[in-house]
């Protein structure tokens, strides 16, 4: 098998394993990465309101699939996990399609 195809297959497997990125931190009760806190989390850390401009700007933009979860930020855990892997697969699929199309244009 061409090694490039092997790489795509490896990527597919990795995509299916991405839920580990949710499950493992949950198991260890780990929080967000440093500096990636939501306003709510930051308020809790500071024991008061977050800095003024941060409060204003943090939630200005509402992404279509926030935190890789189709069900929104506080969706059901299974939905979050499936959505997480789905996001990985989705990105890989789009990349694959573009790669194949570009390959045809030689």
């Amino acid at each position, binding site marked *: 098998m061409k090694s490039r195809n092997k790489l795509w297959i490896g990527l597919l497997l990795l995509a299916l394993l991405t839920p580990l990125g949710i499950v493992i931190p949950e198991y260890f009760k780990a*929080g967000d990465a440093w500096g990636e806190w939501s306003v709510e989390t930051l308020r809790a850390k500071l024991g008061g309101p977050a*800095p003024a401009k941060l409060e204003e700007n943090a939630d200005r933009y509402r992404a279509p699939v926030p935190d890789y979860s189709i069900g929104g930020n506080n969706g059901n855990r299974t939905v979050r996990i499936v959505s997480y892997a789905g996001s990985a697969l989705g990105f890989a699929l789009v990349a694959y399609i*573009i790669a194949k199309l*570009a390959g045809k*244009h030689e």
Partner: protein
Amino acid sequence: MHIPDGYLSPQTYIPLYGVAAGFWAVAIRKIKKELSAKNVPYLGLASAFSFIIMMFNIPIPGGTTGHAVGAAFIALVLGPWAAVVTVSVVLIIQALVFGDGGITAIGANCVNMAVVMPFVAYAVFMLVRGRSTGNRRIFVAAFLAGYAGLFAAAAITALEFGIQPLVAAGADGKPLYAPYPLSIALPAMTIEHLFFGIFEGLVTALLVRYIHRSEPGSVYALREESREIAQ
């Protein structure tokens, strides 16, 4: 390491957008010149790989999480300019579609992970590897490249956070954006990335070794022989 909206002041994020845009422009030109159409699939693979690797959050003692970025591996296998483009695409999609990283912070995040990281990784690899063709040296060089690249990205990110209380404070002197000063931000981010760097280093080294073995001659950083000597 994805900075959300609200943490950086405009006086920080606007110039960083400028820097990122400059690198995007140069990178696109360089890629058009150096890579042919048959390399596009590899750019797609690289983007997908980076996107996916960033989803593997790793908890560390202290209760935070982090992740590898993959930018070092891409810089070594496809060249740092290709890494600028592929990782930037990932970061932009992450921000726009998934809210992972702020919209105002896209420039900053791209500078940190799609510019600083690939170039530091590339430079470290060249330095450590020298002219050696031995597999062990290449493995070690790739590991250190990944490690140093991630660490550098973390340090720059910490710098961007940490100067906010200085550059953007209200009339009362209280921070308007990121609340933590350098004295907190720098140690917090650098110390934990001393650990995460190990993952990035391993991922980088193992993948470079895999590509080098399965498709010899296709690793960009190992093809630099003639250019290196010329320098």
